[in-house]
Every structure is written in C-alpha cells, then in structure tokens.
C-alpha cells in the first residue's frame, strides 16, 4: 500500500481497476483531504471502465459527481453576482484559479470542488471595488484590527470577504504574489495579457501562460500543502491543454523569465514530473532545467517539496514529511516577507493564537 497512492492514480486513472478495498479507502481519504474527491470522480466517470468499479467505492464517486454538478451551478451563479456588483465601477475584473478554469472551460474545472472565488482587480481601484462589493453584500469577517492591517499593508489580497446571505467566500487580489515577496509580480504585466471571457462582457481571465505560472507560484507561497496536490494537478492539466499550441513551451518559459517566476516554474514542473509520471512533456522538463538552483540547495529543496506535496493525510504523515512541511511553512513566509517584517508578525500571530480575543468565534459540534 502506497502513501503516494492518489498521485499515482491521477497519473494513470486506470489503476483504479486494480485497487484493493483498503487502497480504495486510502484513495478516497486522501482525495477528501485534498479537496480532490470530485476530481477523482470525474477522472473515473469519464472512463469506459467506470461501471466496472466495485459498487461501494463507486457510490462515493457518484455522490461526489452530484456535489460537483451542484457546485458548478453555484460558482457560475456566484460569478454572475460578482460581475453584476462590479458593473458600476467599470473596472476590469479578472477571475483567477477555479472560477477562471470554469469560465474558460479549461480541464482543471472538471470535477472541481470550490472553497471560494478569487478575483484580481487593479490596485488603484481596490477601494472602489471593495465599496461596490460591500453594497452588494460582501463583508469582511476579519474583525481583528491587526489582521486587517496586515492584509492591507503587506498582502496581495484583501482579507477574505463573505457574502452576508449566501455565506460564500470571495478573495479580492490586486496581484498574484505579496508585494514584499521575493517573487514579486508586477500586476500591470498580467493585465496587459488578460483575455475576455466569451459571452460575458467585462469578465476576464489571465492568459494561459500566466495561469500556469500562477498555479506554480501558488504552490510555494501558501506554505500550507493540504491543497498542494491540487495545484500540481491544475498545472499539469493546463500544460497538457496548452501543449497542442505550437511554440507554447517557449512562450511559457520566456514569460516565466519576464515575470521573475522561472524558479517556481522549475520546481513545479519537476515536482509534477516526479509525482505524476508521464504527465509532463519531456521537452518542458528539460526546458526549465536551466532554472534549477545551483549547488546542493536546489536538490535539497526539490526533495523537500516532493515530500511535502504528497497528500496531506495520516497515511503519508511520517516524521520526515512533517519536518518538510514545517520547513516549507517557514520558508513560504520568508519568501513573502523580509525577516525584519516577518519576525514581529509571527510573534504577534503566536501571541494571538495563545490568547485569542474574547469575541473570537468558537464552533460547536
């Protein structure tokens, strides 16, 4: 039984036919943990052998497909609401990640389960956008003044907004990496290449190359790897989709260099090639090789990443993986902020965790 079962299945879904019941439990568990149950279900249901899968695990896949179908309607409805709320400021609105894949009908939209919708707007329009969203019912639940200030001063996004009636989450970005980050991305360069969504005036998505680079850099700056495998699958799906376009590989690499994201692209492509064997084009793997960091650091980093990107599930939870994840958590923060900003922030967060404010919400079973 393999701790890396789920990536192996995504690399070659027909493996499902040979799984033991214990392996099915593991695969479903890893998929639930990584928000990938819908994607697993989609990969299986599109195959001719879906009906031959054993009935009990197949029931879970059928159930997940129902959830996926419903969420697809809901995310489309949510997108229309966001677009309607932002018609007035007449600002370009760029949908990111899941919502963008859905709008542009790209492969990572298949079987997707959503936690939130992400949009990108020009920084100078941020106040107007926030006001317009507020009038349409999106409010920030972040009541802590420090956290509010932290987001607004240092991050590439506003604190998450929640719709008062639908309870849906919306992240408003003004660029794709924190302004303090080592991989700072100039949003202007992204906006130059945004593409309109067919049939939905005013709505945009990033160019395909920029989407790929966004999912690559996303892997490294979040510092939490519960969804790491999903980001990697998005990347592999997008690259596979773009593969047919002539000259795409060169475009992608030169765009990565231009945006300063060549190194995240190298790490992402190498990890995808390792965890999802056969999914990455050999030409692309060698095209990003020049961006491998020199010396032992790059090799070590790659080893750590490969381990951390395995499903965040008890079955993969050995001591080495925990150390790898902790290392990357700290490193992600380090990449986001220089030390003189980071240390006071982490201390403050540690204090807030230990002594939560009196009105902090507490859940109950």
């Amino acid at each position, binding site marked *: 039984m393999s701790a890396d079962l789920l990536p192996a299945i995504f690399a070659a879904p027909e493996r499902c036919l040979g799984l*033991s*019941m*214990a392996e*099915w*439990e593991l695969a479903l*568990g*890893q998929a*639930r*943990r990584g928000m990938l149950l819908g994607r697993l279900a989609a990969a299986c249901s599109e195959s001719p052998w879906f009906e031959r899968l*054993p009935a*009990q*695990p197949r*029931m*879970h896949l*059928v*159930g*997940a497909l*129902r*959830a996926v*179908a*419903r969420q697809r*309607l809901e995310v489309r409805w949510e997108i229309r609401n966001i677009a309607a709320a932002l018609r007035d400021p007449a600002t370009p609105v760029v949908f990111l990640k899941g919502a963008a894949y859905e709008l542009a009908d790209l492969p990572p939209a298949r079987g997707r389960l959503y936690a939130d919708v992400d949009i990108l707007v020009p920084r100078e329009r941020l106040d107007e956008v926030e006001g317009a969203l507020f009038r349409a019912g999106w409010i920030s639940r972040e009541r802590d003044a420090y956290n509010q200030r932290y987001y607004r001063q240092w991050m590439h996004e506003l604190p998450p907004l929640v719709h008062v009636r639908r309870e849906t989450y919306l992240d408003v970005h003004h660029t794709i990496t924190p302004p303090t980050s080592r991989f700072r991305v100039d949003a202007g360069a992204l906006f130059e290449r945004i593409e309109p969504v067919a049939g939905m005036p005013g709505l945009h998505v990033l160019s395909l190359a920029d989407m790929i680079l966004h999912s690559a850099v996303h892997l490294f700056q979040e510092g939490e790897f519960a969804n790491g495998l999903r980001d990697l699958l998005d990347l592999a799906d997008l690259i596979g989709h773009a593969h047919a376009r002539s000259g795409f590989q060169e475009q992608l690499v030169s765009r990565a260099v231009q945006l300063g994201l060549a190194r995240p692209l190298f790490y992402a492509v190498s990890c995808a090639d390792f965890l999802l064997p056969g999914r990455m084009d050999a030409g692309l793997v060698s095209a990003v090789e020049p961006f491998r960091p020199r010396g032992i650091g790059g090799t070590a980093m790659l080893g750590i990443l490969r381990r951390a990107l395995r499903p*965040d*599930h*008890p079955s993969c*939870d050995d001591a080495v993986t925990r150390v790898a994840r902790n290392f990357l958590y700290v490193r992600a923060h380090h990449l986001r902020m220089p030390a003189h900003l980071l240390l006071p922030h982490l201390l403050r967060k540690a204090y807030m965790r230990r002594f939560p404010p009196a009105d902090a919400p*507490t*859940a*109950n*079973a």
Partner: protein
Amino acid sequence: MQLSELATAEIVERIRGPGLAIRTGPFCFRVVSRFESVARAVQEMYAEYPLAADGDFADFTVELQPGAGIRRWFRRQVRFRWEGMYPFEPLPAEQAYPLLEWALNWCIAGYGHQFLMLHAAVIERAGKALIMPAPPGSGKSTLCAALIHRGWRLLSDELALISPEDRLISPLGRPVSLKNRSLEVIRQFVPGVVLTAATRDTAKGTVAHMRVPTDQVRALGVRAPAAWVVFPRYQAGMPATLVPRSKADSMFELGRNAFNYTLMGLTGFEVLADVVSACDCYDFSYGDLDEAVDVFARLADGASA
C-alpha cells in the same frame, strides 16, 4: 460475524488498534479510539450488528482521539479526527461516545449523496415507511423510540436515506439518540430498554443512546417505500390528534429540513415530489405516548385495509 461474538478484551483491543468496522444498513464505519467508554458503549449498542470481514470496504473511519497537550490528562477532552483533519471543536472526554454518533451523522450527511437525505426519523410497518420530520424539541425521537417497541420497525431516527433510483428508503438503523426528559419517559414506557450511560451537559443537554431491538437489526437490509409523512408535535396534556396537511406544504417543509436537497438539484426535486405524492401527510400533536401508539396503529391498519 457479529460484534457479540468477540470477547470484550478483543473489542477493546481492535478499537484501539486498527479499528473495528461495523455494518449499519448501507454504510460500514470503522471506529478507532483509545477511550474505553467508546469501546464499552459500542459493545453495548452494536452487539448484534454484522462486522466487516478483513479486506472489506469501510465508508468512513471515525477516530476519537484524546485532547491535545495538557487536555490529554487534565480536564480531559476528546477530538474527532477525520482524514487528518479535526472538523469539530474538542469536547469533554465524557462525551466521547455521543461524539462518535454525531461524527457518523456528519460523515453520512456530508458524503452520502448516493441518497436524497432528509432530516427525519423513519419507521416501517407492514412494508410501508412513515417519515417523521421535525425540529428538535418536537418529541420526534421519543415518539420514534416508543413506536419501535410497539409494532413498528426502525429505519432511522435522524436520517431518511431515499434512493434516487427507485425511491425506496434504506434502513440506517443506528442507536436512537434520546435527550433530557425523554430518557425517563422511555425508561418507563419500555421496561428493560437498553440505554448507554447518560452524558450530562452536552450542547443538547443530557443525552443517551437506545439500543435497537435485535429483530430490527437483523432486518437492516430490508428497504421500504414511504406511505406517510407525519409532522409530530408534543404538547403536554393534549389529546392525540392527526390533522391532514397539504402535500405541497409537506414537500416544502421536507426540502427545507433536508441535508442535500439543494445539492441534488432537479433529481432531488423529482425524487421528493414522487415520495410526497405517494404519501398521506399529517400534522400530529400528542401529549401521551400510549394514545400516540394507538393513533399510529390505526393509521397503519387503515392503509393495509
């Protein structure tokens, strides 16, 4: 093989170790815990349920872990661990077994989308199922617990599992959850009833679970079509009265109290419409269990006559 064939020591050992996988209707759950209170209650409540064989598939693995850090020893807590996550806040350790049952409900409600799932008790008589939806405090569980000792069979006390393919309701058949005053009421109404030790001061007050009669556990594979929808309401001193209720309104109310009615989309609407069309719908108020039992018996006889 059923649970009662295992010695107590082995049950404790298995629940501690790789886990014990128990079948209950269409689902199989594996329980893993170091709490002896959990092993004891599971042994008491699930004695007659079939165990999964080695190599069988378990739908859900529910792990009940000790609290983190000092809460492992001091003012002990229990945490529900699910695929490496902790979906709920920790609870006092005394609530470990109720937490197992709540966690299982949560798993099924969150992932059992092969069914349309309504929040309702379901009981069966002469091959026909009666759906009892109701908000907490309406006396639904008490009524359900009483009726399954007076000629009705338990399908579920919380979750109506309706197949979208053939509209039949699957028994889930897990122990019936009882709260506060209904515990004493049922103890008096059903001499010899088996209840877990009561757990005090939970979010729902004092709770305990009631063991399902053995013949009904044996029938957990037998599904039934719905014939009645009854909305019960307990009112002290009131005579038991059954008043017809509109089908449209009943369907609306059932949909509102469903776990995945909206998730099922058009399928959910069609399934629920079919189910309610085939049912007689009533509001039912009662103040005395014996009277209620009579009214329900007459309802069932009327249908078979």
